């Protein structure tokens, strides 16, 4: 049974769970830690390096020791802190980092070998023989690591939630609740976030008799405020939610556990939500974390933080010991003695490093008749798997006294939880009198209150909260608000005494743990300092202090104190290491949210997509677009399908979905001037109804895009871009217009998705358009190559261009997206008698390569000019300037022997070269000087042989010569040719 008057536990609801295969019982309201402790299970796991037996030391997210592997199979999670896991029916947990069991662990041999594993020992050994590092490393890696990664996919889902508020309050202890009450009365939109599953913070560890507020116990006070807040619409309170990042402009991130007590019963449920919060003002009431004391063997199970022991006592109704010793350097631990007194449990002794005890808490304890050893320290402890005794002595005396005990409560003072404050870029100040870092200068609209601001006694907390919150929120009617009144007798606290190292002389021979999880001792810090690692960052990295899964919440300040004592430097001159986000570890799945699997990246599809799927298309990813790659018929192999598509297009009629090409509508008085500036060729004389191909450069002279632009009207043009560059070209054009040439009247509109584009190719393509548009004459005179007409089919206006990317007669029809599919279907049925063949991107590549047409991004790679592409003809010599012109004459760019586009034919026509293969003049031993590479390579069914394009050094002059393509296992002889393999006279194109 639990002690009565506890705050968390519902004793009517019994819960069973498993730890290391054994069944235990707890109650609703327990954490895994409290339930284990209630069952007398103190030994929870083994430490990282020495495999020392370890037990729970705290009751919160600072816990370094009590970490477990939670659940099995797809639900498993490594390294969960037992102090944070809410107990639920059927929970399964296992201890970590031990073999075969937590009670008997072979790895514990490391504890005996510890003298040989000081800080930095890895850097000094394992170097010989050089080849053996991999073997050493294998064993090191298997010894390291804590829990196990899941092996299966995560069955749960995660969400992101955006929230805007006036005032965000982090932490629901006394100051946080009080701040929420003040903010709420101001009609502000308030969000109060609490990391635990219950509101209350330190209230949860308090007893019901001391430190009353307005005459009520803290629990009653909390209930009343909560009741008021819950009635308001402008206040939102969330629990089980940890704020883990405080970024620019009051952008904060929190993670909420939606199902802390649901366990594994449901798949597909939303497990966690990442809150993305923009707050006008942020109030941090994040509390403080008690520090351990550093003495020999201070890591045994049963040695715990004093206030956490109070929390287990008052919050969970668990008495953790029969023979209790308290070791402290400050007054707060005396409250634990008093808490036990209220439960009629006696304390063996309080060991206090201080000589003069002026505070009222020690006085009260003394009056209770509890033995207090002043000016005393604990030298050592005993007990392998649970503490059995402590060895105490007076400072400056030699007599050692042994006290038997089964629980040691320690308190090394308190560290304000300033993590979020420093993440917000606030600066800290070290306060010497109680050895803690407190907020100093804020950088954003941030207020710290309560113990995270270094205010520890209740009276001051209430006063400070009332005053500073009112000021921070600029409340008008401050006078009319009544402050909360603290009405306990105990107010005076004694001075804390620094006790970073209680037994400085014996550091080197002792195991005084500073970072419990990473097994960093005071000795390791001493070694680091003596080896020249003076900066706090160097000490951290050399010893790994503060780098465990608790991120040094209990160890960082102690390490600073120890460095200070050993080096004689003030802590304030040492500075701190950076408090990095996240405050506590955050699930990857939650950070990814819904953006996984089918939502990882959007899929863009054309209006004809459903037809492609119904017709067996395989797809190629081009940027975010899904483009048909080829359309196999009856289990056709890819090569056969592509050859069929290519051949049908040249022989009769092919149809391509070209909707993904970027389309930019340009209007305005100055479009032709604009085109003159962004393209290399001249545009002034392009007549209405005509189309022109253009190449676009960056101002470094390199090709960035190409495409056909059509003059639709006097001041109206339609530009096409490549699929992949549509967005970047649009942005670049807008950039030039808005920032360099605001005097030009040009309006740009992206119409890529407004029109579908159907491309009819082949000698019979004219037949189809003649049927579609019977009123139009499509002969060369009326509708020549590179011209455009606005036509109607079934009453739908279409933009028809005669342009070609295959070298065949081709008509590209742009039609509003909603009509694209029906036009496509009509083309398919009209083309039946001509064996109309839909072709995909692969056939498109072959067809254009047969004609030597380039693809930007394949024949170019950001280092290729139009001159390199042998496209001198498109680079205007007359224009004074265009984007990229100046760069073409730079000393290297103007060289004549640059890599240039050529055709490449294998001497053996059956060999299809690998794209990406390189060319050499002669084969030599490695390294072999390369002169170019293959950019495109295909089998051409029309030529009955392989063809390839490539960039070859001085290639244009090398036409007719032979080069070699050395592959993995053979050398392939090739000849450099013109890149145009079919119809160099354009007879087919212009037919």
């Amino acid at each position, binding site marked *: 049974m639990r002690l009565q008057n506890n705050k968390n536990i519902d004793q009517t609801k019994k819960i069973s769970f498993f730890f290391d295969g054994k069944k235990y019982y707890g109650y609703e309201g327990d954490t895994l830690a409290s339930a284990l402790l209630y069952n007398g299970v103190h030994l929870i796991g083994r430490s990282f390096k020495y495999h020392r037996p370890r037990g729970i030391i705290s009751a919160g997210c600072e816990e370094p020791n009590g970490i477990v592997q939670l659940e099995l199979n797809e639900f498993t999670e490594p390294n969960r802190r037992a102090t944070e896991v809410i107990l639920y029916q059927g929970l399964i947990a296992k201890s970590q980092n031990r073999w075969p069991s937590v009670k008997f662990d072979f790895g514990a041999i490391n504890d005996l070998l510890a003298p040989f594993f000081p800080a930095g020992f890895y850097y000094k050994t394992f170097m010989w023989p050089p080849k053996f590092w991999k073997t050493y490393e294998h064993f090191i890696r*298997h010894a390291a690591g804590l829990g196990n*990664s899941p092996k299966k996919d995560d069955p749960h889902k995660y969400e992101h939630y955006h929230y805007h508020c006036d005032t965000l309050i982090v932490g629901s202890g006394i100051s946080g609740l009080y701040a929420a009450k003040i903010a709420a009365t101001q009609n502000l939109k308030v969000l109060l976030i609490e990391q635990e599953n219950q509101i209350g913070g330190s209230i949860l560890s308090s007893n019901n008799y001391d430190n009353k507020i307005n005459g009520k116990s803290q629990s009653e006070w909390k209930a009343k405020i909560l009741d008021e807040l819950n009635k308001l619409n402008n206040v939102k309170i969330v629990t089980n939610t940890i704020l883990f990042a405080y970024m620019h402009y009051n952008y904060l991130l929190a993670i909420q556990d939606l199902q802390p007590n649901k366990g594994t019963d449901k798949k597909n449920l939303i497990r966690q939500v990442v809150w993305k919060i923009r707050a006008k003002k942020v109030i941090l009431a994040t509390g403080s974390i008690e520090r351990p004391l550093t003495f020999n063997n201070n890591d045994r199970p049963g040695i715990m933080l004093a206030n956490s022991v109070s929390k287990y006592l008052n919050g969970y109704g668990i008495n953790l010991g029969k023979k209790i010793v308290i070791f402290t350097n400050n007054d707060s631990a005396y409250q634990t003695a008093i808490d036990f007194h209220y439960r009629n449990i006696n304390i063996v002794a309080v060991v206090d490093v201080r000589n003069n005890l002026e505070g009222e808490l020690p006085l009260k304890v003394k009056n209770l008749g509890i033995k207090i050893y002043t000016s005393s320290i604990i030298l050592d402890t005993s007990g392998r798997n649970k503490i059995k005794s402590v060895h105490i002595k007076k400072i400056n005396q030699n007599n050692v006294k042994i006290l038997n005990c089964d629980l040691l409560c320690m308190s090394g003072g308190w560290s304000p939880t300033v993590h979020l404050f420093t993440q917000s870029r606030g600066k800290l100040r070290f306060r010497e009198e109680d050895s803690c870092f407190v907020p100093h200068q804020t950088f954003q609209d941030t207020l710290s209150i309560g113990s995270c601001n270094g205010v520890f006694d209740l009276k001051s907390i209430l006063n400070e909260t009332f005053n500073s919150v009112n000021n921070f929120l600029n409340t008008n009617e401050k006078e009319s608000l009544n402050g909360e009144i603290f009405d306990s007798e105990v107010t005076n606290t004694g001075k804390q005494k620094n006790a970073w190292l209680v037994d400085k002389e014996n550091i080197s021979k002792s195991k005084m743990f500073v970072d419990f999880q990473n097994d960093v001792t005071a000795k390791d810090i001493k070694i680091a300092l003596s080896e020249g690692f003076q900066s706090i960052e160097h000490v951290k990295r050399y010893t790994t202090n503060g780098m465990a899964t608790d991120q040094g919440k209990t160890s960082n300040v102690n390490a600073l104190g120890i460095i200070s004592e050993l080096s004689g430097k003030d802590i304030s001159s040492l500075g701190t290491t950076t408090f990095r986000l996240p405050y506590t570890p955050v699930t990857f799945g939650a950070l990814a949210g819904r953006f996984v699997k089918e939502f990882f990246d959007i899929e863009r599809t054309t209006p004809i997509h459903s037809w492609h799927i119904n017709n067996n298309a395989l797809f190629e990813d081009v940027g975010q677009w899904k483009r048909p790659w080829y359309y196999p018929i009856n289990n056709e192999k890819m090569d056969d399908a592509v050859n069929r598509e290519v051949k049908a297009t040249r022989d009769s009629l092919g149809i391509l979905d070209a909707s993904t090409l970027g389309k930019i509508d340009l209007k305005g008085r100055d479009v032709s001037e604009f085109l003159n500036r962004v393209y290399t060729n001249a545009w002034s004389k392009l007549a209405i109804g005509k189309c022109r191909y253009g190449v676009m450069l960056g101002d470094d002279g390199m090709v960035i895009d190409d495409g056909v632009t059509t003059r639709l009207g006097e001041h109206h043009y339609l530009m096409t871009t490549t699929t992949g560059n549509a967005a970047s070209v649009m942005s670049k054009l807008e950039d030039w217009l808005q920032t360099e040439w605001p005097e030009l009247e040009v309006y740009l509109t992206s119409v890529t998705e407004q029109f579908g584009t159907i491309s009819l190719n082949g000698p019979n393509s004219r037949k189809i358009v003649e049927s579609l548009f019977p009123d139009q004459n499509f002969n060369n005179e009326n509708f020549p190559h590179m011209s455009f007409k606005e036509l109607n089919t079934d009453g739908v206006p279409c933009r028809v261009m005669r342009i070609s990317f295959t070298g065949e007669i081709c008509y590209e029809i742009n039609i509003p997206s909603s009509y694209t599919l029906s036009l496509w279907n009509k083309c398919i049925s009209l083309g039946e008698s001509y064996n109309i063949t839909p072709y995909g991107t692969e056939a498109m590549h072959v067809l254009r390569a047969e004609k030597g047409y380039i693809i930007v991004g394949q024949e170019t790679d950001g280092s290729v000019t139009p001159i390199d592409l042998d496209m001198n003809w498109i680079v205007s010599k007359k224009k004074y300037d265009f984007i990229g012109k100046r760069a073409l004459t*730079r000393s290297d760019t103007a060289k004549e022997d640059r890599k240039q586009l050529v055709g490449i034919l294998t001497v053996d026509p059956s060999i299809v070269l690998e794209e*990406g293969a390189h060319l050499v003049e002669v084969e030599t031993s490695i390294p072999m000087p390369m002169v170019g590479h293959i950019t495109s390579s295909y089998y051409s069914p029309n030529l009955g042989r392989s063809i390839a394009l490539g960039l070859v050094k001085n290639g244009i002059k090398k036409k007719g010569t032979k080069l070699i393509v050395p592959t993995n296992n053979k050398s392939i002889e090739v000849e450099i040719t013109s890149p145009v393999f079919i119809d160099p006279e354009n007879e087919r194109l212009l037919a």
Partner: protein
Amino acid sequence: MIKSPKKYSVFSLVKNAFSYHENWQPAWKNPEIKKEYEAIIVGGGGHGLTTAFYLAKNHGVKNIAVVEKGWIGGGNTGRNTTIIRSNYLWDQSAAIYDHALKLWEGMSQELNYNVMFSQRGVMNVAHNLHDVRELKRRWHANRLNGVDCEWLDTKEVKKFCPVINTSPNIRYPVMGATLQRRAGTARHDAVAWGYARGADSMGVDIIQNCEVTGININNGNVTGIETTRGTINSKKIGVVSAGHSSVIAKMAGIKLPLESRPLQALVSEPVKPVIDTVVMSNTIHAYVSQSDKGELVIGAGTDGYNSYSQRGGFNIVEDTIMAIVELFPLFSRMKMLRHWGGIVDICPDASPIISKTHINGLYFNCGWGTGGFKATPGSGWVFAHTIANDQPHALNAPFSINRFSSGELVDEHGAAAVAH
């Protein structure tokens, strides 16, 4: 070179164990600043320390100072994802990075300091036809340049790295990968410490907490530096200050083609071994390996704006985690433990500058962008040569500052996005 009692070995460790480790010598001293040095290296990161080390070791320069504004190794050396590889596309890049890789292979022994260089291979994954084409281009180039590289098809990728999701039904399926087996990771801090210790043992003064505030120039010749701890004279100054290169350059009136951007990275909580290689995917921006400690080490992309604040936008982190969960769905329930940012100085062609300047005696080594760690020993080796001889080594001649005028860039952005 490193002599007892400083030499590290199993024996020194055992010996020291019996004296409770109270007799270890400092790995490097805390020297008084001299008035004048033969050469000053500005920046005590990996590249700066290796430069000093090789100046002393290969070129016999006796009197060298490394001046560091904070603590050595505190910049990008201690903030990267420790990936080491040399499988670069262009000949010039492959040459310098492979030279660095060879130095990595002997580093622990050369320094008598275990930098834990772990050749567990680097896989660059292809997710579409464009990736396949570009990675194969790199593979063939590497092969002919003598840089070890293999092509793996999807099945081989799965075999080499069983935890990667090779289902054909994911948004961007794995279509193959290149594998460089000699590539891998190292313990980043140890690289700085090992070179510092090595340099110190050859008499190099390592001066920490000393910020450069000015560069003294007389008649086109550099004469020394102003620092927060006074003037230090030298006729040769090598600047290796990564993210802050432009700030130092400004002191000499030089403008560089650099932008300093945030680059973020993170680690997971430590777990038992689960991934035994380095996986890189440029297309979906996922870079992951597992450290000896068991943490998954994950690199994110750069933010799109200049910043010296050592932090970036959280959206970049989210994008990276999405890609990791996409490629490794089993990591979904693992947790981000620690996140950090660095400042990377990026050149327009994503290649470094290791160059003389128009001021005699002033040299810059910068612009390593997101990829400097892997080059650490090679960078220092060629920069030492450049400073000692007042002319570049053949390996760094292509990385001159003049290439931005001539147009002879070494464009490692790879190809632009596919466009057809």
